[in-house]
């Protein structure tokens, strides 16, 4: 399937530009925070950006309507892969969530997010009621629950958490009555209490309690939050300068080039750096969310909104997490953190938005 000239002109180049700008800034900070390590993470990330761009062009080449109608098969495929990885894939970094391709590894759970967006678009595309009814809500929750449980079993709490953005986004869009909100709150409360007592592992509980009191265990679970906050706070207004952050260069900061990349920015470029990055994000999110109005159909609205929610949610969770306002859950900063799977899935999410947007007039 080729994209014809007319469609090509409709591609939102500003959105792609913002994403690429953030990605290159990411490479820049990955270099600063890992140049002293043996592996050239910044080079790898550059390759990933290239791979992701290719993925985006593949995604936008196919009409989203086809993707939506085809999504049910993708859904069963990804559930099968998730179940398979649980049993067969070798252990990496304590989680069983990686599939290897040569030196690069892909997390199926990241792909599950994209698939879920498409499946939900299909589910809600024909739903025209003013508010969500129990039947549709129940079906949506059930659809999300199967891959979610598999991901939580891996266990990959961070990715599982981003499902909340997709599911929540879809439900909000479908319309929630006050009664439904109340039921959801009670349900999540029960899930929360149940999860705390039966579901969460010791280290996960520790991360939550640490959030409330990081000084309780400065060398253990509170270490990351403390060091990250010190890094950000000591950056001040203008920062310590590129590759001059003592917290990151002297390795006090954990996961510098992955989840805590924004701490490096805060330390080396200060509040000004933080402000600029957040501003860029804000522009990107505005561009994404406000594209909703450009969607041709209901499925398109859902896709754009859920994809935007996915990016916004990860962004907020990450910048809250590294400054100690949210538990350390392993949610990377989209486009900036090192990591191929996360980069590809977020690029694909953008690709879906582009896809919907460029086909707003297409009457195929």
């Amino acid at each position, binding site marked *: 399937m080729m994209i014809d000239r007319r469609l090509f002109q409709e591609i939102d180049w500003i959105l792609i530009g913002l994403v690429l700008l953030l990605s290159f800034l990411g490479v820049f900070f990955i270099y600063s925070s890992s140049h002293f390590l043996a592996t050239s993470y910044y080079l790898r990330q550059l390759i990933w950006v290239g791979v992701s761009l290719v993925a985006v062009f593949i995604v936008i080449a196919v009409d989203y309507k086809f993707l939506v109608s085809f999504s049910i098969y993708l859904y069963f495929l990804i559930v099968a892969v998730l179940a398979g990885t649980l049993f067969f894939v070798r252990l990496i970094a304590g989680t069983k969530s990686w599939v290897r391709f040569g030196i690069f590894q892909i997390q199926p759970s990241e792909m599950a997010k994209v698939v879920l967006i498409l499946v939900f678009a299909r589910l809600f595309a024909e739903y025209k009621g003013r508010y969500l009814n129990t039947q549709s809500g129940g079906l949506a929750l059930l659809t999300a629950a199967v891959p979610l449980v598999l991901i939580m079993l891996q266990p990959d709490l961070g990715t599982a958490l981003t499902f909340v953005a997709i599911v929540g986004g879809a439900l909000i869009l479908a319309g929630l009555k006050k009664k439904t909100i109340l039921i959801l709150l009670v349900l999540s409360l029960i899930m929360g209490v149940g999860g705390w007592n039966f579901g969460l592992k010791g280290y996960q509980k520790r991360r939550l309690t640490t959030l409330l009191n990081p000084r309780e265990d400065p060398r253990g679970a509170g270490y990351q939050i403390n060091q990250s906050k*010190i890094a950000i706070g000591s950056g001040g207004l203008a920062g310590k300068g590129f590759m001059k952050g003592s917290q990151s260069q002297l*390795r006090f900061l954990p996961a510098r080039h992955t989840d805590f990349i924004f701490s490096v920015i805060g330390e080396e470029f200060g509040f000004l750096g933080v402000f600029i990055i957040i501003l860029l994000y804000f522009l990107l999110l505005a561009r994404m969310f406000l594209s909703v109005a450009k969607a041709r*159909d209901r499925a398109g609205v859902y896709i754009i*909104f859920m994809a935007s929610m996915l990016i916004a949610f990860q962004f907020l969770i990450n910048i809250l997490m590294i*400054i100690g306002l949210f538990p350390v859950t392993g949610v990377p900063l989209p486009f900036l953190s090192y990591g191929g799977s996360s980069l590809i899935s977020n690029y694909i999410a953008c690709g879906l938005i582009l896809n919907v947007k460029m086909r707003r007039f297409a009457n195929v």
Partner: protein
Amino acid sequence: MPGDKIYEDLSVVVRRANTVFYVVAVLVFLTLSYYWKVQIMDYKKFWDLAEANRTRTRVLSAPRGLVRDRRGVILADNKASFKVSLVRENLKKGTASYAPISALLGITEEELRSRVERYKNVPLFEPVVIKDGLEPEEIAPIEARRLEFPELDIAAEPKRSYPGKILAAHVLGYLQERTPEEVRDNEDWGLRLGDMGGRAGIERQYDALLTGQDGSVLEIVDSLGRKRGDKATQMPTPGRDVRLSIDARLQAKAEELLGDREGAVVALDPSTGEILVLASSPTFDPNRFITRFTPEEWLKLINDPSSPLENRAIRGLYAPGSIFKVIMALAGLDLGYVTDQTTVYCNGSIEIYGTRRVCWFPAGHGSMNLPNAIKNSCNIYFYSLGRQMGIDPITRAAEQMGLGRITGLDIPGEKEGLVPGSDWKLKTQKTPWFPGETISVAIGQGQLQVTPLQLAAMTAMIANRGVPTEPHLLLDAAGRRAHAARRPASPPPFKRSTFESVIQGMWMSVNDGGTGQGARVEGLNACGKTGSTQVVSRERAEMLARAGKPIKTHSWFTGFAPRDNPRIVVTVLIEFGGGGGAIAGPVAGQIFSLWKDLQTK
């Protein structure tokens, strides 16, 4: 747009989506505000935390001040000592590495294990000292295998060293690790746990002078505590040097003369009070306190019945014996009980208060005046003088000559001894003084107790014709005369002629065939007095004497030289040495002789 009804009405969902975006926008703004608070308002706090994170202070030990003798010979020095520390986080194979490490350092594995165990609460990147006090030769084989043992850290620091080993050990004292209380109470000194502090002698007396101010290096470290560079260095300030009045040559001679006998030698300059010799035997090697004792060595040292750590010169309490007769003579003459020419006939024994008392010379000295009684140390003369005087003038005279209180020597631990008297006895024993006791005191026995240093100070006072002297060891510290301001001399307690008469007797004792002739040095004109102190009771001593058995006595000699313008006082005590004339006198003579040789050189 044509066929607009193809498009369904999406306004509701679009509105909802926009609302959510506004919520997101508000959240982003709130988050940014929090970053403002952390980065701009709390900047200082986090900056300080980041600084503390990356810097570690490593202490540079300050060397202690040197201790020199009066001619500049170094008595207490510093030398580089090496210590090997274990950085536990660098242990490659955990506790499995203990065996090769202990083999390399020549310690047992249990020793290593227990040492590491003691520091288990210290962060893993902090080095734990596992062996110290190593010589450069000992460190070479460890240094050579450094690459194999990345967990070992070798550091040099100045350590106290006493090049003369036992020389003047009791004067110098020794160092031991400071107690936690000491470290806490002297915060402004910047002391640390593990620092060595003076525990005895000069090391303790002038600890504050000798202790330097430790320096420090602010090291930049990474999260694993690995050093990445230096930031600021504060060089240590060495302790101030101290110069002592000790003459190392005389001191060494005195220690050699004492040999393995138990005893003490004190020599001082009577005109200034400067101590030239302060020797005590048996002695110890203060270097052993630095390199740490093995437990057996330490137990042996503290349980040794001859107490090698005890400084007999200032802490040994002995009866002065016949040396006390010079005080008797001074008081008797001055108070008019006798004159130079008053004679007493000695036939070897006398009966006083119903008890027969003997002279040390059973055949009797015959008719004696006072100088001759001093020369021959005749007991009979002083028994009768004591009977005449009674205890109170004797007590007063002894106190006037400096007995019964410390001389004020500038090292800690001096004992004050005891001068018995009627008041003292009433107070401590609730019984009145018996006249018979006076007779024992008259020849320096009974409850009288003095230190060798007290007798040296007393002799100096006689040599000065009544001007007291304040014995001291510190000549100067860091170029300053410490004893420049002398205490205003109190007026002599007795007339000058009184002193001259007693000195005549002491001169005859040494130079005219008296008991002190062993101390005679050709051309030096020394004056002296011997003493032999009965260690057993008088009754038992007489019993032994009748049985013809040898009586063990402490052997004393004290004297000064030359007779006019005296420059040196020498006091010798040898425990269980025997007669003072035969044993202590020649020791003093050799010191006089060496001193004279050194003067003419």
